[in-house]
């Protein structure tokens, strides 16, 4: 059989090229333009703020909304951004302005930092964000607030509805609160898991609290009961932090939720 000159069969997959791509992707999981960058706000004493006693981290959705509603967040001290801020259109610029990851200091309490994350961080990018945040801030204790859906819980057939608060913690965390654990074999994934894993690997005390979202028609929404579930952890906070927390009314929670809810942008509905 004469097989020379060798002709490339264009119909066949190029396994070598695919393998090279996979190796490159594994070495650089986050594209350059997506990598986070930490920066302190001007005039902030970075050294004094870098080792807070407590970091409260609210992730997009219920966690961030609860912290924004409960605490007076007036003094930003740092923020994380994506490296490339250049956007293509006015629409993208406007959307980008709403998506921030800002770290605030409590009034009169530089030992407590509150981080509000409203960026959409994909699970693949989450480790990079965890690395960047904790490379600049080394809290003694971390509390992470996030949410979960009924689909994430593998348990009995009982319908579960908000309010419902569960937790996961690192081995070094304080064991005193009475909030039930997130049941095995259910999993938490995404940025919450990445941040908690980072802290667990380094044996630092941290607790992740997740509140149940309401599920309706296949959609998962934050409702006032979801936010109210987080109020259970306020008594467990240090006294000076709990004192700064307000207890918003149902109307205030509803206003906070509707301010971030997707608004119907067209005029079909009245």
């Amino acid at each position, binding site marked *: 059989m004469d097989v020379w000159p060798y002709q490339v069969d264009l119909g066949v997959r190029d396994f070598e090229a695919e393998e090279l791509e996979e190796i490159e992707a594994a070495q650089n999981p986050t594209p350059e333009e997506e990598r986070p960058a930490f920066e302190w706000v001007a005039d902030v004493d970075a050294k004094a703020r870098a080792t807070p006693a407590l970091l409260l981290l609210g992730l997009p959705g219920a966690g961030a909304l609860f912290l924004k509603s409960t605490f007076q967040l007036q003094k930003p001290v740092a923020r994380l951004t994506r490296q490339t801020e250049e956007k293509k259109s006015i629409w993208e610029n406007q959307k980008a302005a709403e998506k921030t990851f800002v770290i605030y200091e409590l009034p009169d309490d530089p030992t407590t930092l509150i981080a509000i994350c409203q960026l959409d961080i994909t699970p693949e990018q989450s480790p990079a964000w965890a690395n960047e945040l904790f490379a600049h801030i080394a809290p003694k204790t971390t509390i992470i607030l996030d949410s979960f859906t009924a689909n994430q819980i593998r348990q009995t057939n009982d319908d579960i509805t908000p309010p419902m608060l569960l937790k996961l913690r690192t081995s070094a965390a304080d064991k005193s609160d009475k909030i039930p654990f997130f049941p095995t074999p259910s999993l938490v994934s995404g940025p919450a898991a990445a941040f908690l894993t980072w802290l667990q690997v380094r044996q630092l005390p941290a607790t992740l609290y997740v509140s149940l979202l309401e599920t309706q*028609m296949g959609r998962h929404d934050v409702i006032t009961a979801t936010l109210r579930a987080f109020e259970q952890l306020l008594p467990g906070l240090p006294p000076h932090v709990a004192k700064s927390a307000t207890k918003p009314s149902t109307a205030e929670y509803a206003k906070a939720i509707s301010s971030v809810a997707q608004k119907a942008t067209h*005029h079909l509905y*009245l």
Partner: protein
Amino acid sequence: MSGYDSALTVFSPDGHLFQVEYALEAVRKGTCAVGVRGKDVVVLGVEKKTVAKLQDPRTIRKITMLDDHVCLTFAGLQADARVLINKARIECQSHRLTVEDPVSVEYITRYIAGVQQKYTQSGGVRPFGISTLIIGFDADKVPKLYQTDPSGIYSSWKAASIGRSAKTVREFLEKNHKDDMDRDDTIKLAIRSLLEIVQTGAKNIEIAVMGNDSVLRTLDASEVEAVTALIEKENAAEAEKKNKKKGDASAAAGESSSAS
């Protein structure tokens, strides 16, 4: 869910008509409307949507008359509301011609609900994506408030809400509604319930009041703002009273612990 949600006339194995339930989702996209019944008055309050700069606001109406003595508001798809309102108006006039009497509020509500139900049981059509609140007075001079929804259900209410954040408003109404409220209290309750969810305040609230003379009167913006200012004053006084009570209670606790 897949396979049973695209056809209207097909039940799912667990008894759902998904198109009807999806129509209820369309209702939730509309701005909130609330109805409150008092002793001899019935009030409709709606959250006004911001009108586009170049749009004529007179052509965007959320509160409409069906007949001289019956008024309707809706939440959901505007175009569906227009079609249903036209059908209802024709029925009102047809009834007057045939029976030589105006429709009762219950009759026209039943008619509207019947039309909505018909569109949940036919092929080639879809349900109306609106819920309605219907108010009016019959010859008995008793205020009436009815609600219909895309499934064709209708019922009478003392106070009801539809549209966006209706659940929050309904919970507020359940806590604060009293029977036999006078005109001012009924208007105040309607405005207070909308202020629970309307972020921008009085300027985005419209109130229509019908008394036992069956005349519908829309309050001016200044009247709504005056009531809103009164409500805010009452809320501030209430908050001050609560803080004072808390302060007295903690002072008393401090004294008793120092005495012991």
